[in-house]
């Protein structure tokens, strides 16, 4: 059994089922008058078909077994999870805190989890947030989020 393809195929199958249900709700129409759900229905149906083939292949793969531990063979995924969570938090706080403060906090965190010394992390975070602010806000006039403090 190939667990990678089994999981991947199952995720695609679930996604396709959702798309097909949505297509039905939108209205598929007819061939001479296709409606908004026509293409989602067609694409969802094809994804269902291909994901079914992939799942079947994965279940029948006897000579090349792939286990979940082969996929997660490193411990580095915890760091990836930390980065992803910190980016999600950044997306939440960047509007109320403003670009400079939120970016400073994010960069300091990312540098610290990469084992940079704390003072170097703070200096680096300040440098990165201020320099990108200068490049994008001042030079390129990108309206970066201001936050409550106005910067």
């Amino acid at each position, binding site marked *: 059994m190939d667990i*990678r*393809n089994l999981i*991947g*195929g199952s995720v*695609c199958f679930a*996604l*396709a089922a959702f*798309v097909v249900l*949505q297509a039905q709700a*939108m209205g598929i129409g*007819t*061939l*001479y*008058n*296709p*409606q*908004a*759900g026509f*293409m*989602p229905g067609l*694409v*969802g149906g094809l*994804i269902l078909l*291909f*994901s079914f*083939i*992939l799942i079947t*292949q994965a279940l029948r793969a006897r000579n090349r077994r792939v286990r979940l531990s082969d*996929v*997660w063979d*490193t411990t*580095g*995924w915890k*760091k*990836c999870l930390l*980065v*992803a969570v910190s*980016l*999600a938090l*950044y*997306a939440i706080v*960047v509007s109320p805190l403003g670009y400079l403060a939120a*970016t400073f906090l*994010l*960069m300091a965190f*990312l*540098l610290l989890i*990469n*084992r*940079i010394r704390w003072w170097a992390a703070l200096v*680096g975070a300040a440098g*990165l947030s201020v320099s*990108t602010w200068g490049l*994008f806000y001042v030079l*390129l*006039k*990108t*309206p*970066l*989020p201001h936050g409550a403090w106005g910067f």
Partner: protein
Amino acid sequence: MDAINGLFYGLAVAFEAQHLLLLAAGCILGTLIGVLPGIGPVGAISILLPLTFQLPPAGAIIFLAGIYNGAMYGGSTTSILINVPGEAASVVTCLDGHQMAKKGQAGQALGIAVFGSFIAGTVGLVGLQLLAVPLSTLALKFGPPEYFAIILAGFTFIVYLAQRSMIKAALMALVGVAVSLVGLDPITAQQRMTFGNIHLFEGISVVPLAIGLFGLAEVLVNLEKTHPVKILRVKIRDMFPGKKQWLQSRYAILRGTLIGFFLGILPGGGPVMSTFIAYGVEKRVSKNPGTFGCGAIEGVAAPESANNAAASTSFIPLLTLGIPPNVVLAVLLGAFLIHGITPGPLMVVEHPQIFWGVVASMYLGNVILVVLNLPLIPLWIQVLRIPDQLLYPMIILFCLVGAYSVSNSVFDIGVMLLFGVAGYLMKKFDFEAAPLVLGFVLGPMLEVNLRRSLLMSQGSFSIFVDRPLAAGALVICLILIALPLVRRLLRTRQS
């Protein structure tokens, strides 16, 4: 305007001081990105796109095209010197390039890579220059059925030329189409899969999607590994290939150029695929195939020529039909649209300044890259010494600003993060991201042309068979679908 007059007109555009500066900046940034492992041209173009928002469209596209070409040149440096490909199109160069470096021939390997790239890139551009106008004229006669059949053939090529499983590539391309359907229906303006969220009414933008899949996902995967860069201590000398090296690699450059030229035009082909095929062909035709993998100069010349020829010719379908053949050009199409330019058959007539300016600037870019690349190699080696702990947070920051700047929306940061995590998981589960992005970009074109065709024919599929070009494209689809099935059947019979 014919091809010769067009080129002179384009040169006048490209030689404007601002465009020349942007071209040089794009080439240098592209080379830097090609040199640095972990981020390829797709991520780079997406991340750096906000830098172009204040620029005129011609300057913006010249800058982005410079990044693409620069990345193709720069990737070989890391492949040869540290055995780590800077981007996917340089993977094959590692095999013989690094072996040459170990033997003290790093200069020759770098030299033949640069000169092979220059020759092939220039030949590709001549093809682009000569084919663009006739193809644009022909494309003006296409209707929805032709466009639908050509895009469908493109999808079939993408799946057929997939680097791993065809089933998985097909799935990813279809998922890309499904994601592209989010937003308002293009004909009835009905909401589709928006969950009532106002940010989804206009659909998902290609830039945060590409930054997530190719920028953030790469960083996340690289964060897992700790691979201290070991740079080979080599003396970079004799970078101008001698008579012996030229004689050894002349046919490899020629074959690589031809392979790259044609694969660049095909959807799903592009620079990466062409390098693998060029290397395979070279090994097969060689009188000494045993030398491949041990430092054969042909093993560097062929793939490096192929990827640059493909990079040049991949602009042909984008600029003449408006159809991007590979994922980098798909992101570049997004950049065109953001700047209010729709690539396609009318582009050469409606925007000659941009069309010919881009073509001419790519010629100039090739020259700039040769002139800059060789003397700057010591600098690129120093760049490789930037520790990952500093580099990755910097890339993440540019990903964030790049995603935000497209529509000045925090929502796009969320989209980037979602596709970044999805891209990371896809890498873990061995699913390719490129078909997804191509499906995402081609999906809306496919839908609109299919529905228009059906409306035209009152629901009859005969419209795709009655029109010769559409029928021809569908026959190609059928052949491409049948080939692997026939091969499988024959293999089963033999065993």
